[in-house]
């Protein structure tokens, strides 16, 4: 078993956040790519999302399961992603670190939510 990392990579954070936003029933590779594109205006490679999900799964931060087959997918199922408590914990940790690091720099960073 590989040792779990405390901190997530920037791309992993983005993927986890997209999965959380989409919810357990709608999060899969294609929709995660779309969500990142629509929300963060960032174009990411789908292949990179596969790799990131695989790593997160290996670390126990997400679990995946096959959904129902869909006709627009040639009768193939989606692999739906669920963020696990370990993933949420790591996300909170990373987000907290980032906030602490950014504290006092709001003006400089011009954070807009």
């Amino acid at each position: 078993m590989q040792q779990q990392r405390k901190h997530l990579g920037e791309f992993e954070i983005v993927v986890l956040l997209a999965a959380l936003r989409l919810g357990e029933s709608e999060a899969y590779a294609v929709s995660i790519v779309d969500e990142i594109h629509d929300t963060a205006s960032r174009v990411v490679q789908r292949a990179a999302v596969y790799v990131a999900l695989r790593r997160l799964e290996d670390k126990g931060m997400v679990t995946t399961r096959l959904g129902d087959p869909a006709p627009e997918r040639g009768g193939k199922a989606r692999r739906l992603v669920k963020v696990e408590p370990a993933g949420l914990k790591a996300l909170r940790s990373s987000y907290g670190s980032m906030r602490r690091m950014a504290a006092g720099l709001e003006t400089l960073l011009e954070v807009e939510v």
Partner: protein
Amino acid sequence: MRRLFLLAVPRDRREDVEGDLEELHGRDRERHGRSVAAVLMVGHLLATTFAFLWTRLLDAFGGMSRWSLVDLRLAGRLAVREPLLHATSLFALASAIALATVGYTMVDAATRGRLPLEGGERFLVVEATDREGAERQSAELRAALARDSSTLEYVGAVAGGASNLALPQGVVRSVRHAAITPTSWRLLGATNVYGRGLQPADGVGGAAPVAVLRENLWKSLFDEPWPRADRQVQIAGVAHEIVGVVPDEVGFPLGGDLWTALDETSLRGAGPGLARPTLFAVRREESSLSEVLTELDVFAPSLSEVAPGEPALILTARRFTEPPGGVGPLGTVMIGCLVLLLLVVSANVAQLILARSAARAEELRMRHVLGASRLRLVLQLSLEVALLGACAASLGTAAAFALLRQLDAVLTERPFWLDLSGRPATALFAVALFLVSTIVCGVLPALRATSGARVRKRSSERWHAFLSVGQMAVSMALLSGALVLARSYTGLIGGNLDLPRDRVLTAQLYHSAPETLAGDGEFLLSVKRALEEIPGVEVATVASHLPRVDAPLARVEVDGASASVPRAAVGPGFFEALGTRPLSGRFFDRRDGSDEAARIAIVNEPFARRYFGGQAVGRTLREVDGEGEVGAPLEIVGVVPDLGLSAASSEKAAGYYVPLVGEPRFVSLAVRAAGTPLALEEPVRRRLVELDPLLQVRRVQLLERVADEEIAFQAGFAATLTLLGLSVLVLSLCGVYSVMSMAVSRRRREIGVRRALGAGPWRVLRTVGARSAWHVLLGGLGGLALGSALLQVQDRLLVTRLPVGESWILPAVLCLFVGSGVLAGLGPALAALRLRPTEALRDS
């Protein structure tokens, strides 16, 4: 593509990833249309495949440190268990790398050589011809190109050939001579050993003739060190002053012993012994050859203004080191042979590695079932094969470099720019090529063993069969050729001709105006008379061909029968110079005037025996010309012993002699000495230069050394063919061995069952060896046909007539072949015979 995708994406992820791709494809189709969507799909597929492949490779190598030592230990144990197969694979791979490196270096040097001068790759030969193809190079053209071209930075001229160099004290040498425009001298980058090089002032009309010598020639001519008081020499009859000496490395344009100056304005001054000046140019660094060619195309029509009244010119240029007319048919054949050989060798190596890995198919399948991933198995096999390849690469590269060094030392008469030293880049290329092919061949069985699909054996077996038979045929043909050459070689060195030893000095005569030699025979008679005036000369004579040099074949009719036999034209005193006596009749003599000479002939003893039963004097033969016209009868006035009209084959020596009257453009000289013949060299050269300064004497040697060059060539050629033939033979025997080994390992269970049911040794041998035996037999028959064809081609290509009529050669090679095939199959056959039914059935 699909296979790669399936290999990269883990089995449990295939469905959803394929679903994602399908979904994206549907979207793309709606947005962009069917065609664009298809293209985008390829991109999605590639990106997904490589992403998964990369991740899996990283994962695999992350854990490599744990298992690489285990795998290495396993590879070592396997090598010890199958030493013959591993040693054979190592040898085959090393030979392949060595052959590829040597072959590629030679072809590359011959076709893409570079002048060893600064900017040598930019040197070009400029060719100018008219519409009829006649050369039209001129001083005006050079001046126009130098003035107007924007792609050429310099245009010069050079003429090469051979000339007589005579010292005041009487020493005469025939030397390689180059006349060059003096402004070109700076391009050679030569640092003079003594004195100076050519200077622009040397090329001004009316300048005193000067020469620059190569250091070797200087040392051989002058005992005293530079500067000498008297450096005047005669070159082709013209007095020149030696103004400098350059190192031996200087060789432009075609290797040379001395350089003189061409007139810069008129390009005159090349001397009578040299070819017409050729224009050469150096293109600008920023211009490519195609730009030069384009400019020359545009430039050619404007030349009519430069030289009004001259026919329209066609201008073209080629790299200086590129042979005129490209690689030529012989070069194409060489490259074709090399490619063929490499294909055979590569396929053999592939087959051996395949056999090695295929023998482990069961083990790989078992490990896969026990949980080893495909990638892990593939990486393990790659590691093993890469190790094998690395050992073979070291051996092969070392062998190639050693061979190239030998060739570099032996092939001295080659253009000075032809660099035969092994280049690391070439070796790396060969090594990389074979490593990739061996890794691919090594991992294929692992992929097959773990794919779960049934392997289609038939096509691969057909391929193996085709390969084995083909290479055996090639090997047999090469060995036949080598044996014929070896036979010819023994004929050359071991001939029992009755020729004098250490009595006769021979040489070749050249004249700058060849028609002088081909006149009415008076000039050659004056040569004979002049030489016989030298003290110590007993008899001097001239002939079209000396003994032990193949005389050309002539068609004759004898008693109504037609035959092609060797014919030589000889001057008065030829047979006397060789110290021979007529077996019957008489020799040619001064009584045979030119009218008489046209009607008489002397035949040798083999001819008299074959066509006249030994009684030839008084009989006649008729010559048949190229159009089939039968000439007047030639009366046979004498019979002489076999004096080597055919160099290597006494069976083909039956021929005849006619008087030498106005025929040849080049003749040979033979001088019978009262004392030591080599002491006559200088007096002969001196006397002939006095007779005519343009008459050159080359290749001065004793009569018994005349065939040495041909002997060396044939020995080299035979050795090369033998080496190639044996290499291919060993590789094809490796093929036989690997096919039989595979058959034994694949059919282990079947052999066990057969033995258990009472099959005898012959039955078992037939099971495993029938296919290999067929391969050997078919390869042998193919080799017979290919060998016969090769012998015919070889006979036409070589100067010396070969003893191709010897019918024992091909069957002998066939026997050697079959015997070797049996030996190669012996190991696997014995393994099959030793197999106990209980072991075979238990293992399976």
